[in-house]
């Protein structure tokens, strides 16, 4: 029984939590890839920016991190629209590799700006011991983990409804399928691109806040997540938002469960190799199934 509790509390729940965070980030990556056809390497740093926007309001107004979410989402959306307007839009007619490389530059700019404004040390939304809730009279889950997973599920459900039933969602999928045909259907690509930035940026902001809430806020936090998020997006198939959700969860769980002492005694893999697990999954996918599990686009 003790072993079971340890498994749930120290491996399964953290795996689901980081999986939810990866999924939120990976959805943005994959949506942007579908609509703009380039990998947005600054997405991790957009997450960081979201975490710092929230930190500002948590600090100023003493808000609960969850209440700071809408503000962080709004600010990050504006940031993304600005980045798109000044950096990516002028390069849109160039090969997508140019955009990818410029997103590296944007990543460095965001990170450096954050370091200038907030310094390089770590920050926290809340300090001290966290409340937790007991389930079935056996295991306890920290309240923030419940919040994180519930918010992620609600946001993903909302995204599902948006993509499936709204005019905007259908137009986004259409642009992702075939940009030229979408224009020939009267869909204004630039409006869809903006909407995609708002959605991708907002979800990245939420991922950033959750990441900071679950640990600490630091200028490199998002950049460090780029690898597992990309692995999640590739695992699910680029351009496939539902794939990214599953991919995120799989990568999160794989990372945590790989260090569980499955065969008694020692951890199967030292927790230091967590990033290696995501990387291995990504490389394996790229070699054997570059379309991802759910058939994304290679182009």
């Amino acid at each position, binding site marked *: 029984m003790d072993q079971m509790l340890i498994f749930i509390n120290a491996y399964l729940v953290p795996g689901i939590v980081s999986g939810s965070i990866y999924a939120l980030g990976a959805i943005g990556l994959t949506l942007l890839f579908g609509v703009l056809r380039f990998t947005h390497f600054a997405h991790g740093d957009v997450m960081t920016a979201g975490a710092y926007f929230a930190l500002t309001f948590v600090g100023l107004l003493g808000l609960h991190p969850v209440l700071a979410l809408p503000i962080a989402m709004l600010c990050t959306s504006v940031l993304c629209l600005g980045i798109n307007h000044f950096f990516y839009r002028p390069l849109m007619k160039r090969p997508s590799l140019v955009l990818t490389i410029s997103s590296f530059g944007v990543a460095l700019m965001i990170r450096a700006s954050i370091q200038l404004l907030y310094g390089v040390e770590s920050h926290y939304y809340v300090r001290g011991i966290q409340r937790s809730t007991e389930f079935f009279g056996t295991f306890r889950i920290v309240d923030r983990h419940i919040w994180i997973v519930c918010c992620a599920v609600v946001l993903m459900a909302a995204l599902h409804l948006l993509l499936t039933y709204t*005019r905007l969602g*259908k*137009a986004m*999928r*259409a642009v*992702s*399928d*075939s940009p*030229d*045909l*979408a*224009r*020939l*259907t*009267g*869909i*204004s*690509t630039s409006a869809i691109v903006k909407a995609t930035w708002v959605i991708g940026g907002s979800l990245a902001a939420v991922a950033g806040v959750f990441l900071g809430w679950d640990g600490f806020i630091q200028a490199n936090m998002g950049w460090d997540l780029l690898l597992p998020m990309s692995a999640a997006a590739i695992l699910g198939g680029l351009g496939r938002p539902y794939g990214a959700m599953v991919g995120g969860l799989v990568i999160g769980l794989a990372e945590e469960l790989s260090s569980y002492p499955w065969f008694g005694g020692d951890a199967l893999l030292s927790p230091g190799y967590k990033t290696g697990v995501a990387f291995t999954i990504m490389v394996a996918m790229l070699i054997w199934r570059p379309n991802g599990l759910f058939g994304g686009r290679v182009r």
Partner: protein
Amino acid sequence: MSLLSLEGVVAGYGPDVPILHGVNLRLDAGEIVAIVGPNGAGKSTAMKAAVGLLNIHDGRIRMGDKDVTGSSPESIVRKGLSFVPQTENVFPSLTVQENLELGGYFSSRGHVRAGLERIYTLFPPLRDKRYQKSGCLSGGQRQMVAMGRALMPDPSIMLLDEPTAGLSPKYAEEIFSLVLGINANGTSVLMVEQNAKQALMISNRGYVLVDGRNRHEGPGNDLVRDREVAEMFLGG
């Protein structure tokens, strides 16, 4: 006044190499007009130029009295012109109904509902397949979805790029009779066709393009009978 006219259009895919070297085309209200010619003559290119997908180096494109040279595809489409490309003419990961709904992207809800009913009446097989992904359909059904999508906004002009390419003769026949039906409902049709003879026979007028230039033009039936045109590519 013509519904659509290309006047001395020089255009190509890049900024440098033109494929059209001064093409003149016009489509009048109520007409079916066919563009025929050998491979690489610039037939499809002329259509893409008309819908704003290409760089126009010289010449003018007009819709009625409006100059639309250099306008974006989305604004041209919103003025009542629909284009059905030869390939990639459906959104494969969207269902048949979603494809059609997007055809009415800039119309009101009521208009979309009425449009769906109209399209399902015109293409009965699509009604049964409406919740299927259009990427899973056969070539002929896909062509129906593409045409249905283009017809959703009830356009005054419809441009078809090789609507019968890759279809069986039976399906091609069906597409041609659909074109006649669409025309009878008040949409003027400009089409590029490999099946030149059949296309010219249902057309009011035809153009023969060769090497990005106008070679012949005239009533469809005259072109079919024209010896030079026949020798060139109607197979004698």
